[in-house]
């Protein structure tokens, strides 16, 4: 389609481990977990009482005394804070760090028009919808805030970020459940390749740890319920005792940039977004297809259009949500997609340390792939004491692993049977 190449020049992260890219990455590599008992509401009547909350400077989410806790006052005024759902707040904060990291604050009109935003969310302002529904029911329509709709709409993350920075290029938002972040990065890279923009802020944001979302995912029997007294043990991808995913909040935004544009301004480059595959299962609303058939095809497509030899892929950040069925299916699909090379692959699920960030998962996990390429180290799969199956793939149990990372793959699969796979690689 075009010989325009797309590289990552900035990364911003708000995670359950910390606010900030470097603090999150450092703790991830050190094998820390961001899990804890839910403290934003009393979870006593919930089957699942634990989550991966973002640590705040006000103490919630275990943020007391943490030098890397999240401080909303650094990003929005107290007036704004009351008028945006938290998923928008996290998107604004992650975008700010990404723009700072990329040193991309254009002042001229043309550059602003050539910079777009595509930050999605799996669920968006569900907590705002829930709270407003209660207000409407109890007090009637006159008590509904004029800021309710713009605080809950998913594309308002992209909208708010564009307003803050003056980015007037494509303004878009992905909604593909747990594949949102990956699709946002892949689609944004395509917009740059096609020539619609030179720079895109791409990623995902999620903040749904609240009564309604926990109740909903519990009802769907998707969440872990056996580790309420030991939250840090609950997210255990590939382990035989895994019993469901554990929810996480946070956001990640990547600055994607056309390669020549980045080179011309002397930007630091993490990696190239070289391959992107996307498929549908056409199978079931929540369960993955047998053998992760749709995921397999997404991986094959990403490998094919990346133009690299699959043997150059050294690390895979798996979807690996810690559900009984999904983890094994994905691992099997990876073995089939890579054939003999599977025995050389390292693959971890960082959801063991940060939980499942739903619509932000694909974005933060692709960011981890970029940092793995930068530092030539691969994050671990925590709690992998006894794998439930045999595989030639190194699942990186417990401890981070130093090693050559030439190219990395990030997989994300969502409810509804939507799959995305990204390949990123060292820039040559």
């Amino acid at each position: 389609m075009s010989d325009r190449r797309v590289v990552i020049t900035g990364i911003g992260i708000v995670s359950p481990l910390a606010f900030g890219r470097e603090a999150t990455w450092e703790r991830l590599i050190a094998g820390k977990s961001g899990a804890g008992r839910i403290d934003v509401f009393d979870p006593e009547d919930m089957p699942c009482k634990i989550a991966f909350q973002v640590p705040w400077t006000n103490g919630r989410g275990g943020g007391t005394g943490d030098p890397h806790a999240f401080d909303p006052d650094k990003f929005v005024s107290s007036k704004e804070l009351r008028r945006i759902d938290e998923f928008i707040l996290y998107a604004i904060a992650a975008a700010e760090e990404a723009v700072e990291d990329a040193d991309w604050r254009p002042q001229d009109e043309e550059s602003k028009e050539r910079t777009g935003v595509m930050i999605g969310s799996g669920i968006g302002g569900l907590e705002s919808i829930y709270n407003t529904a209660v207000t409407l029911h109890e007090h009637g329509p006159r008590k509904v805030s004029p800021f309710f709709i713009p605080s809950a709409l998913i594309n308002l993350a992209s909208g708010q970020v564009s307003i803050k920075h003056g980015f007037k290029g494509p303004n878009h938002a992905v909604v593909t459940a747990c594949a949102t972040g990956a699709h946002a990065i892949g689609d944004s890279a395509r917009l740059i390749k096609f020539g619609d923009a030179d720079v895109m802020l791409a990623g995902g944001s999620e903040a749904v740890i609240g009564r309604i979302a926990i109740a909903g995912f519990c009802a769907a029997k998707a969440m872990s319920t056996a580790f309420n007294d030991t939250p840090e043990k609950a997210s255990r991808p590939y382990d035989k005792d895994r019993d469901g995913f554990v929810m996480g909040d946070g956001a990640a935004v990547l600055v994607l940039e056309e390669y020549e544009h980045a080179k011309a301004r002397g930007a630091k480059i993490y990696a190239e977004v070289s391959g992107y595959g996307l498929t549908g299962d056409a199978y079931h609303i929540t369960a993955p297809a047998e053998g992760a058939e749709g995921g397999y095809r997404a991986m094959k497509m990403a490998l094919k259009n990346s133009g690299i030899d699959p043997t150059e892929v050294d690390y895979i950040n798996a979807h690996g949500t810690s559900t009984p069925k999904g983890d094994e299916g994905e691992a099997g699909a990876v073995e089939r997609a890579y054939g003999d090379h599977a025995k050389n692959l390292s693959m971890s699920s960082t959801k063991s340390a940060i939980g499942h960030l739903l619509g932000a998962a694909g974005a933060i996990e692709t960011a981890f792939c970029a940092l793995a390429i930068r530092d030539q180290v691969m994050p671990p799969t925590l709690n992998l004491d006894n794998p439930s199956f045999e595989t030639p793939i190194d699942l990186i149990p417990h401890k981070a692993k130093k090693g050559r990372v030439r190219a990395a793959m990030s997989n994300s699969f969502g409810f509804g049977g939507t799959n995305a796979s990204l390949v990123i690689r060292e820039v040559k």
Partner: protein
Amino acid sequence: MSDVLERVKKIVVDNLDVDADKVVESASFIDDLGADSLDLVELVMAFEEEFNIEIPDDVQESIRSVGDAVTHIKAHI
């Protein structure tokens, strides 16, 4: 009654995130205090809550300044 202005001021300061000394009777919510149309709706809701009154939609349109609000509230509490 005399504290209506002070109570209005406090609501305006909290809602619009502006300095208290800018909130004088002649100040226009939009031109002087940086409010937009959505801010105005929220402000009126806050006045209704604070003073336990109902401000009809057609009256809301005419409340453009701190003084307008104070005058209306004084006439209806």
